[in-house]
């Protein structure tokens, strides 16, 4: 149990808090000092929820301890809270409200954090409640970015994350002339399109806009749809979406190239679903639960959770980054590099932005192995070879990131840098 949370937390651990910790603003607002805010008892803490330790299963959130219904591992207790923090200097402030980052003036972004407390003598031991340490000092609060790993399409469409890393959306083309946009939050929970404004764009082959149609909130209160006249609705449909999640926020742009109609996956057998709490309606955010979760039941029995093990690597990624299967000689590596870069190119050309990350990471893996062969080159060429490998590393990470954000323009630009660097390596390692 103690290592389970390691598998869960997808990103940063934000340590704000005790007096010796520098990562905070000069004039910290109320909630940034690490002082435990006045609580009126355990009931005032964010609720305890139980989540699956596997990053693959980050969508599992239960209200009581037990086994993960997907991987059968024991669920881990966390306290989740909705906060705002700096987009870059994430630990500088954690606030309850939107505002400006005191370090760089950028808008604070919403984030779901898990809260835990620890003592100076055991900084890695996470406790689920504030209180006193053995030395009499107050436990310091820590914030941890909560699970956020599930970018799987739910409706057979293309799934992307917005630049604010909070909003997510999936575009589907279920039937001729109708594009549907599913909105999700940071936990892949369906969201209401209330206050969201957007336009569906149709693009030509050069990705120039040729038509625009409004996206309208659907009656299901969790999707938006746009209707396209039959004359323009034929496949392949090179669509894009301009969307504002709030009127005051910047516009987001996503490419949605549809080469085929989206097919809704079949529903899972209902018997496997755990029994929902009485009164709650599955999938309807905001539906009141019959009972608020109990105050931390036996929270004291909770074992401390340690971050002491590398995270679990998903199988597809493990394969893409497996160096042992790669050719051992330079010619073989260069050929493999070109094969993988071509795979990236095919997905980029097909507009499969959500899938392009995996071959990009695979390309980078080959390039890094090839970098170890740099000494086989004449001395004056080595720096150029290493510079090209660095370009591939950076371009691959950009493809990974912007593919996930659905930004076709940036993915294409990064792919161009990737191919240019692959060409340089081809020339340098030419027999």
């Amino acid at each position: 149990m103690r290592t389970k949370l390691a598998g869960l937390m997808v990103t940063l651990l934000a340590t704000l808090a005790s007096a010796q910790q520098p990562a905070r603003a000069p004039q910290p607002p109320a909630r940034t000092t690490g002082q435990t805010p006045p609580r009126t008892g355990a009931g005032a803490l964010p609720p305890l929820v139980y989540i699956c330790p596997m990053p693959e299963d980050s969508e599992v959130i239960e209200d009581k301890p037990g086994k993960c219904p997907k991987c059968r591992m024991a669920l881990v207790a966390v306290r989740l809270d909705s906060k705002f923090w700096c987009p870059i200097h994430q630990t500088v402030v954690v606030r309850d409200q939107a505002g400006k980052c005191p370090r760089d003036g950028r808008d604070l972004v919403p984030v779901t954090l898990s809260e835990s407390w620890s003592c100076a003598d055991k900084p890695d031991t996470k406790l689920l409640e504030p209180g006193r340490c053995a030395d009499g000092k107050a436990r310091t609060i820590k914030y941890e970015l909560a699970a956020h790993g599930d970018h799987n399409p739910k409706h057979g469409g293309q799934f992307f994350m917005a630049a604010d890393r909070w909003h997510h959306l999936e575009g589907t083309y279920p039937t001729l002339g109708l594009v549907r946009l599913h909105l999700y939050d940071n936990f892949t929970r369906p969201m209401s399109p209330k206050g969201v404004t957007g336009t569906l764009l149709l693009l030509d082959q050069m990705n120039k806009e040729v038509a625009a149609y409004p996206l309208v909130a659907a009656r299901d209160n969790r999707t938006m749809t746009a209707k396209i006249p039959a004359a323009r609705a034929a496949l392949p449909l090179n669509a894009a979406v301009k969307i504002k999640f709030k009127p005051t926020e910047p516009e987001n742009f996503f490419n949605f190239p549809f080469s085929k109609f989206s097919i809704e996956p079949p529903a899972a057998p209902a018997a496997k679903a755990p029994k929902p709490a009485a009164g709650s309606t599955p999938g309807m955010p905001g539906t009141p639960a019959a009972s608020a979760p109990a105050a931390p039941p036996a929270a004291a029995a909770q074992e401390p959770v340690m971050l002491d093990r590398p995270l679990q690597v998903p199988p597809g990624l493990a394969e893409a980054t497996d160096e042992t299967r790669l050719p051992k000689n330079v010619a073989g590596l260069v050929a493999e590099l070109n094969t993988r870069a071509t795979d990236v190119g095919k997905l980029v050309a097909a507009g499969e932005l959500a899938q392009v990350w995996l071959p990009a990471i695979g390309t980078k893996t080959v390039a890094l192995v090839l970098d170890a062969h740099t000494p086989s080159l004449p001395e004056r060429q080595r720096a150029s070879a290493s510079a090209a490998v660095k370009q591939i590393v950076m371009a691959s990470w950009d493809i990974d990131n912007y593919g996930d954000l659905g930004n076709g323009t940036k993915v294409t630009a990064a792919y161009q840098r990737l191919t240019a660097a692959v060409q340089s390596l081809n020339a340098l390692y030419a027999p």
Partner: protein
Amino acid sequence: MRPSVVRTALSLTVVALVMSIASTRTDAHKGVTSKYTYNDDVYPILKAKCGRCHADNGPTPMSLLTYQEGGGAVAWAQSIREMLMAEAMPPWHVDPTGPAVKNSHSITPHEMDILITWASGGTPQGDQLKKPGPSQVVSQWSLGTPDATLALTEYALPVGTMEASTDMTVATNFTEAKWVKAVDLLPGTPSLVRQATIAIDGGQTLAVWEPADDAVTAPGGTAFKIPAGAKLKVHIRYKKGWQDEQSAKADKSTIAFYFTDEPLSGKEIEAFAVEPPAGEAPPRFSRTLPTGGRVLAIRPQVDRAYAAVEINAVAASGRKVPLLKLRGVRPEWPRRYWLADPVELPKGTTIEVSTTPGDEDTGPLGPAVKSPLQFSLDLVAQ
């Protein structure tokens, strides 16, 4: 907000389960989980490539040499990724495809990938037993015990003052001319001193100091000459970490001299400045060497961010030899680049500078500090 987390948590369970069983999950984007851990893989790179500045008590307010205690690398993971992807950090501007310089500390592709993978992929800590010990900035002379030192007067930054710079004139009290192979500076308060320049009053620049670099000695057989009774002009730029804004801080730095014998030629290292004409700097400007000489080092001082800067020597025949190639240059960390292989140039050689302006105000480091544009060659005349 909190009750809604639970409400949706309850209701979501069912939906999430239904959806996840049904969906294909082979290709969708996943956070690239890191096989690299802080203790095993990340700390050694941060220590070697970032630890001169990003250490507890160092000249930057964010230490990367702890996992999470006192801020720590985890808290800066996203920032580490941004800086690396923009090639803004570590601030090493030498283009590797140009001539080599001494004491290069660029980051290798593999190191960069380990850091980005770790920062993007869950920032795992690794084996608790391999946890690195506490590390602080060690204040010591990089070239060993100096032959002579000169203590500077204390400079104070009061409460509320974040940045300041000072120009002081200091007497060396040397009663005879001294030949030196290196001049160095040791900050009294390493967390304050960001940059320093030490020059002979009205003469040659002896040292361009910044915290990430060790001092370099002039190549064998070459030396700077400090005349008897010379005074030094010392420029120091101070900056507090934001956590020190509300406290008063002071620094009392020391200058060190490393003496050497007078070169056989009797000639000292001189400066040859190449500056743009007055007014707006053209993308290309040049100046012709009145005498031949051996170029040992180049000191660029830029006025803004440049995507690329090239300094070439063009012989009367038209043949071009690159002297220094920089990219992504910014004014914050001026350096003296000692050429790995000094270049002999005949009389009449033109030193040609070409610049490609960079994006000034964007990028993770924000707007650049302004200063005059100038390129100085350190050379020994024939």
